[in-house]
């Protein structure tokens, strides 16, 4: 069952990244996602980047469906189902370090609005940073691989530095899988709690097709947010995923 929603506003966030705002009366938790159908084109999963009455999807142009989405204008419609999956478990009392790599920041947007702590916004280069204005009041740390803005280097390196200098109870992360893997390792090494949002190729979105499974966990239903105890034995993290046929592939 889909519902049709109308796009009200569009904002260019970064190179190849746009936010689409729409009204919908569902009540997603930070970290949850929807399936977006563009009839005749594609259906794809998308995490919610703005909760509240005027919701948002922040979409990076990567495939057929997302490219078509980037051609849409205010007044155009999309078909959605959801919200799906398990979101972040938020404890407002805990001092948090939030690390968003590239479009992974989209997933973390609603979470950042609810927690206290520090935020790292990271990307390969300055033009790919998103939500620096949205969260400017929080004075986010910036990291770019090429040093075009903020800290020069990987988000994991900056996170390691901050973790060594400051005390955190928990790390929340979303972004490239090698970044997540690095942060999970850091969390175990420094005995800090961690929750991460993972991404896998997704077909059904409702926990039956097995396409998005990682070590027996379904990203669409058991995740996309996973907790430290689950990540402990997740040896496919950063290594193995499944392609459209279900064949094992190497994670880059």
């Amino acid at each position: 069952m889909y519902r049709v929603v109308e796009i009200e506003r569009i904002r260019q966030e970064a190179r190849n990244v746009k936010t689409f705002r729409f009204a919908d009366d569902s009540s997603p938790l930070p970290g949850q996602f929807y399936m977006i159908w563009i009839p005749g084109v594609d259906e794809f999963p998308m995490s919610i980047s703005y909760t509240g009455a005027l919701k948002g999807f922040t979409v990076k142009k990567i495939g057929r469906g997302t490219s078509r989405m980037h051609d849409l204008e205010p007044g155009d419609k999309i078909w959605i189902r959801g919200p799906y999956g398990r979101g972040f478990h938020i404890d407002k009392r805990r001092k948090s370090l939030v690390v968003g790599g590239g479009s992974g920041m989209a997933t973390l947007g609603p979470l950042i609005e609810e927690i206290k702590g520090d935020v790292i916004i990271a990307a390969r280069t300055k033009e790919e940073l998103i939500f620096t204005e949205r969260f400017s009041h929080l004075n986010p740390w910036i990291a770019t691989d090429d040093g075009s803005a903020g800290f020069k280097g990987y988000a994991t390196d900056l996170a390691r530095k901050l973790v060594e200098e400051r005390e955190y109870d928990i790390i929340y992360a979303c972004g490239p899988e090698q970044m997540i893997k690095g942060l999970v390792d850091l969390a175990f090494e420094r005995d800090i709690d961690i929750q991460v949002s993972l991404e896998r190729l997704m077909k059904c979105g409702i926990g039956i097709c097995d396409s998005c499974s990682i070590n027996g966990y379904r990203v669409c239903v058991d995740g996309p947010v996973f907790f430290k105890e689950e990540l402990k034995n997740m040896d496919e993290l950063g290594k193995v995923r499944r392609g459209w046929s279900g064949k094992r592939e190497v994670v880059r």
Partner: protein
Amino acid sequence: MLYVEINGIGFHNPLILASGILDESGDTMKRIASLGAGGLVTKSVGIKERQGYPNPVIYELPNGMGLLNAIGLANPGIDSFEEEIHLALDSGVPVIGSIFGADEEEFAYLAKKMEEYGVNAVELNLSCPHAKGYGMEIGVDPDLVESIVKEVKGRVNIPVWAKLTPNTHRIVEIAKSAENADALVLINTVKGMVIDVDARMPVLSNGFGGLSGPCIKPIGVRAVYEVSSEVDVPVIGVGGITTGKDVLEYIMAGAMAVEIGTAIYLRGIDVFRKIEKELKDWLLKNEIKSITELVGVAQRR
């Protein structure tokens, strides 16, 4: 109380994971076994890697009626499936390798491979309703069904199960043509379509799909009832089983065991545990010592 034996294979309960649901990854199958499934049927695997259809591949019917899907027999190909089988076998419950082919030779080749990988039985997919040249397109021809079953039987030593389609008026005739198999599995999904009126087009990228879930249960029960009285091999019931009472309906219609899939979507991944408890409670209350006492009791004789 729930132990059943089919073709000499022991199942600690008659609740088997159906093909096509959470059975692409060996780890996921292991998890489902640990959550109560008595056996596991793998995703249908073919000779070559196959991508299946683009999204949307699934549609959720309102009010928990069920699902319409057209995944399109996506699979990594038989050569890439050995690792998944080995992981699934680690679970300790019987593993049944589901295979699909275009002709006798492909089915026989795949069955042999599955046997080499160590599965306890193979299930021939003669019934997928949404893939050109496979499944149901083969499974509605009694002569072809007969010759595929015969060829596979001649090439492997493990039991051969034939999964049949409800999308025919000749179900008993087809079942009889497949009677050389060691067991018959009824039913696969029912061919269907959903149109989104706002989009003015079918939802599934393939147009047609296979309907599953509670809305097809009476079709499955009827098929098991009709077929089990006409054949001498065990029948395994599939289609819309969501509760312990649904299992009993199929058993009383003549099934020895059942396969469960869509219920995972409706009641969670631990649904096997839940159904197992419902079954036990009913059997205790009705003072039945073994579920096998109930096989076919609803048949009018």
